[in-house]
């Protein structure tokens, strides 16, 4: 099992803020819209240095999506910012008609996704957003794993012409991916090559998968760990190449089992290479108030849950 050294832990939302600020300097067409959560989304630096390109919308997310769609017509590249819950479920119809169906170049940037929002509780802990965005034709769905990767993804999606859902979060997590990485949309990242099981993880669960890999190595299990930062389009080639070797699969995500990464990979495998698969995620439940770590343990989204899933799936080989 490879080692993944890191010198600092940071929140992925700060990676977004840093990437957006960088874009402000390099791409004059990038504009930012925020629904009264500028500080939470770490958009302050962009707002301060590029005030003419920052649009405060107030607590009016539907209007924000429509404004962004309209701005693309004049060649702008709008980045909208609010919590993941209000970025998706609240405005699904606006995204569907004015952005996805209309093929508009809007970047829907969503923070505080999943259980790691913590104490605010289930009203804010959306666990269905990836599913909703995945179902939309023409929508790209990205869920990076740490600060550096979120920054790189933010910069990369400005270069891509089309609607994107970029999902990130609030907790501080190890910042272990390279600062100079080139983010390739739709290209899975093989973190550790292994022969016994393929672990496909996304977002905050990538680091948990690395921790699980170390525990599995102590048990003599050689896990292949792959970071699926782009959930749609799925890197089918990388998934199929890995499972052809390992012959069993565990998926891990901070999302409902319904509609998420696991669903996507299971669908692919069912059509191409039917193999045992176990899924780590939230099983048809809302969240609740507690610390992020307490919630990730209670809802089975930590390294122990991944280790259990690996043991189960290997027994089914």
């Amino acid at each position, binding site marked *: 099992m490879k080692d993944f050294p890191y010198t600092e832990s940071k929140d992925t939302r700060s990676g977004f803020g840093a990437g957006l600020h960088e874009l402000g300097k390099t791409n004059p067409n990038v*504009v930012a819209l925020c629904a009264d959560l500028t500080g939470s989304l770490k958009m302050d630096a962009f707002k301060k240095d590029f005030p*003419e*390109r920052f*649009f405060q*919308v*107030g607590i*009016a997310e*539907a*209007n*924000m*999506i*429509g*404004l*962004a*769609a*309209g*701005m*693309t*017509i*004049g*060649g*702008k590249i*709008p980045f909208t910012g609010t919590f993941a819950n209000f970025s998706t479920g609240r405005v699904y*119809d*606006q995204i*569907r*008609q*004015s952005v996805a*169906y*209309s*093929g*508009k170049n809007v970047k829907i940037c969503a923070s505080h996704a999943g259980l790691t929002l913590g104490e605010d509780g289930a009203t804010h802990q959306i666990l269905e957003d990836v599913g909703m965005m995945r179902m939309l034709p023409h929508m790209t769905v990205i869920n990076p794993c740490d600060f550096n990767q979120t920054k790189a993804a933010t910069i990369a999606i400005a270069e891509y012409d089309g609607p994107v859902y970029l999902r990130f979060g609030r907790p501080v997590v190890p910042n272990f991916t390279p600062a100079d990485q080139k983010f390739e949309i739709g290209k899975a990242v093989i973190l550790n090559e292994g022969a016994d099981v393929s672990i496909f993880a996304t977002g905050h669960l990538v680091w948990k998968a690395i921790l699980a890999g170390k525990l599995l190595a102590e048990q003599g299990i050689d896990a292949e760990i792959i970071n699926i930062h782009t959930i749609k389009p799925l890197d089918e080639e990388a998934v199929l190449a890995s499972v052809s070797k390992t012959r069993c699969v565990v998926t891990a995500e901070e999302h409902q089992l319904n509609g998420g990464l696991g669903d996507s990979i299971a669908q692919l495998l069912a059509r191409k290479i039917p193999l045992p698969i176990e899924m780590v995620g939230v099983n048809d439940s809302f969240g609740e108030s507690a610390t992020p770590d307490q919630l990730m343990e209670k809802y089975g989204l930590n390294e122990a849950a991944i280790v259990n899933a690996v043991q189960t799936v290997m027994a089914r080989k």
Partner: protein
Amino acid sequence: MNPFNKNKVELTTIAAQVRRDILRMVHAVNSGHPGGSLGCTEFFVSLYFKIMDHDPKFNMSGANEDIFFLSNGHISPVWYSVLARSGYFEVSELATFRKLNSRLQGHPATHEHLPGIRIASGSLGQGLSVAIGAAQAKKLNGDDKLVYVLMGDGELDEGQIWEAAMYAPHHKVDNLIATVDYNGQQIDGPTDAIMNLGNLRAKWESFGWKVLNCTDGNNFDELLPVLEEAKSLTGQGQPIIILMNTQMGFGVDFMMGSHKWHGVAPNDAQLQEALLQLKEAQDDY
């Protein structure tokens, strides 16, 4: 750039032809929305043949030209007819309305790349936000042309309209002319009975808009001066909205003033009876 500066006689002639197109389009597929389309015919003809500085050699960005958005997308027949008649695409293509593999979807869409359409609409309440965004992009680009948007009055039930209504004055979006098709009807009946709009003028004024009334949007003598006044008031720090009284179904006596023809197509006999009331002016497609 504007090749369209028709006089009133010409506009009246075009309007009759557009009404024939609307009726024949919805009749051919026994579906679509003739009522609001007929009621807004003078408005569309005025915009595309007189008021707007626009280019039928369609460019999605709409840079350095006036652009129009239709929020109440169900009145697509009138828009398609006016786009075709002003040269955006062949008039014969109107015959494909709502048929398989057509660019003329039931509600306007962009992915078929129909010239003149810049965003999908149909799910109500979204067009004002889009128009405001497009207007702000024009300002960022140093483009001094205008953005027009039409909404239905029933559509004002939607909350997003009022989010946008609050936003535009706050951000001084003064290169925008919105219009409400104030025909007093929605699908289930009169707006007064379904969801009373109250004092619309006071509502928009209190949000910070410059409000103009058009007492008869089916009369060019009433409509054109209001549209010209609206243009003259742009660039003064305030968004502009026109409350335009129209009659649903205008131009066909048995369709006028009733919500019954909101989303119902005429049968063969009704079509013939309606066409007798409208003179063919530029050849039916």
